[in-house]
């Protein structure tokens, strides 16, 4: 049975996810995941999330998928001990060094290579498997044909079915911190790298700005150039993905409102159950109508969030440290 993996940016979202049929959920420990801190969790909240989820048979993964500094590796491993002790079922990582260190320190812990690891080909998967990864998230740009070859490799495959597709390959972009990077530490010394999605989680989405295209300094060629960044809903592909035997279907959206995430989880739960109960009689059309309503609310929330980020990206950097 395919696993439905959903986001949880706070305790209310954990409850909504559990009540609406998630098999697993992922949470971001504060300072360590690819989202801004408002959508991450304290250790106490993470512990409570595990309690709520496990009580309903739902698994919890900790998304520790930013790249830490080298000096943060030792504190990260100490933190990991806490999260493992609290009962997390797995961890989502991006950094090769962190993966190797975590695998060495916690050999029984399931390691999933994040979308931020940008795994694009079968040799990539073999590399990550060799350093201790048990499941990989497929990049959003891969085709079904490319995903099919993954079946030949003994590794769990996770596919994003509800997300946003960046212009660039995810994990291979530092446009945002090029324009604005704000450094700041918490009481433990963790650096937040605000503005760097790879290092701190927050992305100002500068690619979505209305750019003009110039040849050299004088020749203006085009206005409002768009670097494609589309909503990414794999509705049509969900049946073939289930048939293909992918292990996990994943949603993004820790930053959305709790009720929206609850509706999204319910939608995909119902769809997966309907298809697996009767693959031959399954009709996608009514699901497309239902998804359109969810998408309208989701697009509205995202657009507002993007405008806020544009404004924030233009603010002067408050602190600077090295």
């Amino acid at each position, binding site marked *: 049975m395919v696993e439905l993996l959903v986001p949880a940016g706070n305790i209310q979202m954990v409850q909504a996810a559990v009540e609406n049929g998630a098999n697993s959920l992922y949470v971001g420990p504060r300072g360590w995941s690819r989202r801004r801190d408002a959508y991450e969790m304290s250790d106490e909240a993470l512990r409570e999330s595990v309690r709520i989820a496990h009580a309903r048979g739902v698994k919890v993964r900790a998304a520790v998928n930013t790249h830490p*500094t080298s000096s943060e590796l030792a504190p990260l491993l100490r933190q990991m001990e806490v999260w493992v002790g609290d009962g997390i079922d797995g961890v989502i990582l991006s950094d090769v060094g962190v993966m190797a260190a975590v695998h060495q320190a916690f050999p029984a812990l399931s390691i999933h290579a994040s979308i931020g690891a940008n795994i694009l080909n079968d040799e990539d*998967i073999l590399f990550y498997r060799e350093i201790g990864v048990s499941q990989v998230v497929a990049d959003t740009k891969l085709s079904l044909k490319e995903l099919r070859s993954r079946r030949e490799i003994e590794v769990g495959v996770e596919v994003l079915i509800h997300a946003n597709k960046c212009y660039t*390959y995810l994990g*291979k972009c530092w446009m945002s911190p090029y324009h604005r990077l704000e*450094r700041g530490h918490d009481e433990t010394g963790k650096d937040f790298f605000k503005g760097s999605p790879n290092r701190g989680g927050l992305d100002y989405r500068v690619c979505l700005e209305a750019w003009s*295209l110039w040849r050299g*300094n004088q020749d203006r060629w085009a206005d409002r150039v768009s670097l494609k960044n589309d909503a990414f809903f794999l509705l049509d592909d969900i049946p073939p993905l289930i048939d293909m035997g992918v292990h996990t279907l994943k949603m993004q959206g820790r930053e959305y409102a709790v009720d929206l995430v609850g509706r999204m989880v319910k939608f995909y739960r119902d769809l997966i159950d309907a298809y697996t109960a009767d693959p031959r009689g399954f009709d996608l059309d009514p699901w497309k109508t239902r998804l359109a309503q969810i998408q309208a609310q989701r697009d509205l929330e995202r657009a507002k969030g993007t405008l806020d980020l544009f404004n924030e990206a233009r603010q002067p950097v408050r602190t600077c*440290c090295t």
Partner: protein
Amino acid sequence: MNRELFELNTTISNMKDLMASDLDPYDAIYLGNPFCRDYEANFLEELDDLRVGIRHCREAGCKVYLSTYAAPRNYFMPQIRRAIGVAAEEGVDAVEAHNLGVVRMLRTEFPAVPIHIGGFANVYTDTGAAVLGDYGSVRVTPNYELSLEEIEGMAKSTGLHVEILVHGKMPLGISDYCFLLEYEKDWGMKCPDLCQQDLFLRQGEWAMKSVGKGVLSGRDVCMLEHLPHLVAAGFRFFRVESISEDPAYRRDVAAVYREALEEVLNGAFQLREGWWEKIQTHTKVGLCNGFYFGQSGQLYIGNQQSAGFGETSARPSTELGRMSSVEPLSRAVNNQLRVIS
């Protein structure tokens, strides 16, 4: 020339650019365009050209490296394998891999070929670099987001050679999609000419350079006035990123850095007006330091704020050069020197 004391290198995408380029200021050349398979006559696709190109660089007294695709899908891999095969036959000095699948391919299928890890491989931690060292990598370009302090720590803790960008447009991202193709009809120009038009994305004061699937910094990273610090810290492998530049840029900028690095190593470094004039000639948007000083990548920290260099007449002063002197070389530096020579 102190050819054995440091390495100055650059990237060249195809035979046309190679033949038009003066390689004299360089010690090594990376051949191949890592952004796009459709880049005009990319060495990674034109393997007869690759053979000739490797020999040409050798005859010019340069080491030769093959640069591979930064974001290779499954269907890229057979061509990458063929290109590495040709490069290996020609005795290439190393292959640059930005993708960990390519690293694995090199280790398993071409174990004799030294591996350089490229800037898109996302090496952010010492431990990550060490893992890649275990896979046979001998040189690492850390992710561009790392500060100099972090990079120095990585070099010391891993013992790997570390290469850094000292001048040119810093890669900021790579896509599978070339948005320039949407404008072929409007502009009456097609691929593969479009991405070679010196195109900049601008939004107010912000600017990035587009090379189609690749996005580069609008401002040129410039570490000229910081070279004494870089040398004292032990760095010896320096890249002038000229992949999207014309042969004059490639020649002039490297000549400035070659001269400056030799002066640093001779203990006689002093910033010269002529150097800044050359740099200014080739600077379209401005200068920056990337992330080397732990700040937003587009900022310039130096003796003079010259972020608008190229758009205004502002020029860095020479004060820092007069103040700088080469610090004693550390043991790690000496070890690196031994390996190079």
